[in-house]
């Protein structure tokens, strides 16, 4: 299974998000001495934080800050496989869109692999390359982004209003193509009605 350079959504009902449970630690504790400060600052800048966060304990951070700091550490350590656990929760719209672009760029240009655990399909849409459905700890089924309608992968998530709308329209014999964006849907409706 080739996962390099992909953004993958994990679907596993038995999965425990232990990363969500903050421990009383300094996240940047135990960074190898060989890591230069410039690299740390660059990673922090990439996740919209500053160097004040280097010395903050996990319990002094909001969930958003905590997730960003974990991501920064993964980038500093050149972790080629990065796990994002409900990463977008608590984040404002602009930041969510910023990080979606960042993950796409890092995966396409630098071959990072992102494993995403979330319940929000709107975060996955136009970001995720593949959906991996797990059963008993093993990948049972892999669904490509182009098959989300055919395989109904959105049923594992919340916030799939765009897909819901298209599918319910299809039940009434409208909107027969697969749409991934509100503007595509709008144009299609306009074409049908005008």
């Amino acid at each position, binding site marked *: 299974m080739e996962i390099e350079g992909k953004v993958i959504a994990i679907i596993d009902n038995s999965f*425990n*998000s232990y990363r969500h449970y903050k421990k009383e630690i300094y996240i940047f504790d135990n960074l190898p001495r060989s890591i230069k400060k410039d690299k740390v600052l660059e990673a922090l800048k990439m996740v919209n934080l500053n160097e004040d966060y280097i010395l903050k304990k996990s319990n002094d951070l909001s969930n958003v800050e905590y997730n960003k700091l974990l991501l920064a550490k993964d980038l500093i350590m050149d972790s080629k496989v990065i796990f994002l656990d409900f990463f977008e929760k*608590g984040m*404002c719209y602009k930041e969510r869109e910023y990080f979606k672009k960042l993950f796409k760029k890092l995966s396409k240009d630098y071959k990072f692999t992102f494993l995403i655990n979330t*319940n929000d399909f709107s975060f996955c849409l136009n970001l995720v390359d593949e959906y991996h459905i797990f059963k008993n700890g093993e990948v049972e089924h892999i669904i490509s982004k182009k098959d989300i309608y055919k395989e109904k992968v959105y049923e594992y998530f919340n916030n799939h*209003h765009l897909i819901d709308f298209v599918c319910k329209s299809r039940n009434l014999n409208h909107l027969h193509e697969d749409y991934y964006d509100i503007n595509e849907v709008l144009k299609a409706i*306009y074409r049908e009605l005008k």
Partner: protein
Amino acid sequence: MKKIFTYDKYKLTLYDVCSTIIYNDEKIKNRLLNILPLEDYIFINSDVIPFNISVKKYLELNGFKMNLIPYFNLQTITNKIISSLDLSSIIYIKVLSALSSNEGIVIFDNVFTYLSDEQKQIIKKYLSENHIIYINITSDIEDVFMTKNLMVLTESGVAIEGKTEDVLSEEKLLKRLGFNLPFIFDLSLKLKSYDLVKKTYTDVDGLVSALWK
């Protein structure tokens, strides 16, 4: 309506009506939470601990009214260990035990975004039936329909407030402030501007019927 809290820096006044507060920068929300006298409210956030006890035991220890288990659809998980559940279920149980064993105004800090649509609807129904006043603080625009009133908070203060759908209709202002709109509302607002529907919608079925039937 009775005032329950004011924060001059943000020109913010909270009344004893159910409201959602949405913000465009987490620092704004953190400043608000630092100033709110949270000890006067039932404050529920998404921080949870994966306890190694059963759901039933946890609920009992927290004073949950066990006759509400069917109401909240907990029958299939009462004997499961909390740490074995997915995060949404653990947060759901935290919310329920806080609501059922306490009285007062509730403040939710980015909680509903973790829950399934079914879980949100059950909680909303319980809050309504028990006339519980709650403030829903969230960054997730899809959760603004948890209340009929909406307040948009920015660095300069309250940018706009009022009935949720009236506030969301101020599309240009919201987009300028860096917000998006809930998908169905956004789509129906755009369709309305093309005279393809007569009004805005908040639910998929409503919009589908209006458009195609």
